[in-house]
């Protein structure tokens, strides 16, 4: 119990810094990224070179796009666990169809399941109000099953990675990954959509208070269906980019990216409960996770210890970030 003078005392420096960062939530994230890179450089002097940066960006991009799907769905209070399956499907279909088909036709075929799964997800969540976690989990199971059936019909056809995708996925131009040609406009589009379009507004509003949006004339199912279709299409595009990067189609190609994509969005400051967040943070979140993976690979320690460290760092980063941003 204390009685404090009400006169405004000068704000201490530490608080000022905190408040400064709270208003610009990207800054602490960038600082963290830099710290991780510095640690890496100390552990393996010389590793941070042009080639390493290019590699890191190449692997961070597919993760960042999938994390974009999560960011948008999380804004509405949802989650899209089917992105891994969708990306895998479009990649696999592209690689197998391009053997006998015109690339454009193969592309259309590859995007078809993405659109379909998006629509089914959207209708399930938007019309039938199935929980997004369950809905997208279910469609991803169904998608995986379909892919396995499909796979058997094309064993004999073999697979081929179209040159264009390989160029996009792995190529460098003046040391800069070509994948940025796809990613930069895409990211700009997502950021713009979220901040400056009616649709973006609705995503935030729906996630914040669905009843309020309804009373304002918003038709929930339209927003949600559009959202999940967009998310699926993005995932499909990611699959194509990813197959260009990995160059080996398999039935579980993009599956390992699903949980990290959720983690990237959360580390980037998007609330899993909806209504709060943005895409720029997510991009940095994806970079942080990619650098972290490298860091842990470089460390010579048993696999078990590495996983423990990964979990602890993800937790610590998210907690520290929340502390900084929620200081108000």
């Amino acid at each position, binding site marked *: 119990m204390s009685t404090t003078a009400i006169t405004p005392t000068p704000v201490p420096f530490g608080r000022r810094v905190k408040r400064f960062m709270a208003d610009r939530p990207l800054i602490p994230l960038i600082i963290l990224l830099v710290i991780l890179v510095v640690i890496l450089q100390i552990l393996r002097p010389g590793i941070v070179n042009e080639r390493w940066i290019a*590699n890191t960006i190449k*692997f961070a991009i597919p993760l960042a796009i999938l994390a974009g799907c999560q960011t948008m769905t999380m804004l509405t209070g949802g989650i899209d666990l089917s992105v891994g399956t969708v990306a895998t499907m479009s990649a696999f279909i592209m690689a197998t169809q391009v053997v006998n088909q015109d690339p454009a036709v193969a592309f259309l075929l590859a995007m078809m399941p993405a659109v379909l799964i998006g629509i089914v997800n959207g209708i399930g969540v938007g019309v039938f109000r199935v929980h997004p976690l369950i809905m997208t989990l279910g469609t991803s199971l169904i998608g995986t099953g379909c892919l396995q059936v499909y796979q058997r019909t094309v064993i004999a056809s073999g*697979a081929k990675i179209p040159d264009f995708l390989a160029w996009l996925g792995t190529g460098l131009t003046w040391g800069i990954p070509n994948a940025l040609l796809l990613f930069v406009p895409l990211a700009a589009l997502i950021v713009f959509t979220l901040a400056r379009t009616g649709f973006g507004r609705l995503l935030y509003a729906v996630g914040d208070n669905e009843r309020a949006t309804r009373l304002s004339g918003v038709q929930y199912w339209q927003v949600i269906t559009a959202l999940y279709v967009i998310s699926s299409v993005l995932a499909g595009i990611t699959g194509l980019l990813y197959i260009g990067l990995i160059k080996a189609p398999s039935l579980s190609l993009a599956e*390992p990216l699903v949980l990290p994509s959720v983690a990237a969005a959360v580390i980037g400051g998007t609330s899993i409960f909806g209504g709060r967040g943005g895409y720029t943070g997510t991009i940095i979140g994806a970079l942080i996770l990619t650098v972290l993976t490298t860091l842990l*690979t*470089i460390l010579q320690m048993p696999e078990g210890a590495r996983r423990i460290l990964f979990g602890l760092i993800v937790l610590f980063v998210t907690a520290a970030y929340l502390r900084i941003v929620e200081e108000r």
Partner: protein
Amino acid sequence: AGKYTIGISNTVQGNGWREEMVCAMKAQALASGEVAKLNIAHRNTDAAGQLEDIRNLISAKVDAIVVNPADPAGIKAGLEEATKAGIVVVAVDQAVTEPSAYIISNNQEQYAYLGAKWLFQQMGGKGDVFYMRGAAGASADSDRDKGFKKALAESPDVKVAQEVFTGWQQDQAKQQMLSFLATGTPINGVWTSGIDNVIVDALVESQAPLVPVVGADNAGFVGQLSSVKGLVGAAVTNPGSIGGAGVTLALQILDGKKPAQQTVLVEPQLWENATEEGKAKLKAAADPSLSPEWPVSISIPDWTTYTKEQIVACKGPGE
């Protein structure tokens, strides 16, 4: 036409090797003409889940069960129950501890030893090797580790520069390779646990020196061994068609022809591209029409009788 019902239990789905194994089982069942129906439980699960599948197969009253065990010891109880119920049990790919079961298996320890020994020879018995294992905690991975360590002990001047678990995932392996290359640490060879073609891709893309690479006989890698200029490497066979052999063994036992021993080991072969002789083997084995994740050794002489068309069609009896 056939008279038997055969149950199949497998616990890894969506991986080229296992898909080939299941297709080989189907093709062999069809080719033998003795099987009326296959009852396949094929999904991603653990030993407890495999116990469930095996017990379901017992409920389905199959005549024999061919199983790729999730764990040698973990499904003992289920296999014992199956034998008690008069069902012939054949384990493929890995051994099981249940004594009543028959085993026809690729020799995983030998698989690793053979490849590692050749690799260390190529490296001149010294230098640093990048050791890319499979999934931490998987029993095939720990068997292979034994073989690798044995070869390592025989070449005391070879050092492991870095040991990683790829989780048998292509993207992870590629990222690990690229990260490692970016550190600039010199290496003299790469041993991979069957995640091979992406490693060659990574070496080529990053314009790093092409060091010798040992992988498995996956179609993609076998193709690379002939086509990538300057690549020295070897593919160690690890045929998924062992599944077909398992069906054959089960049928023999059902027909009353028991093998002399409970365990039949299929020894791996090594195809390298350092010698003309090896190149010829590779050329003969290469099959660009197969999915790159499929092992090219789609049949095992003496054990399988199906044609390539049959295994590629992947159809069992009655389909």
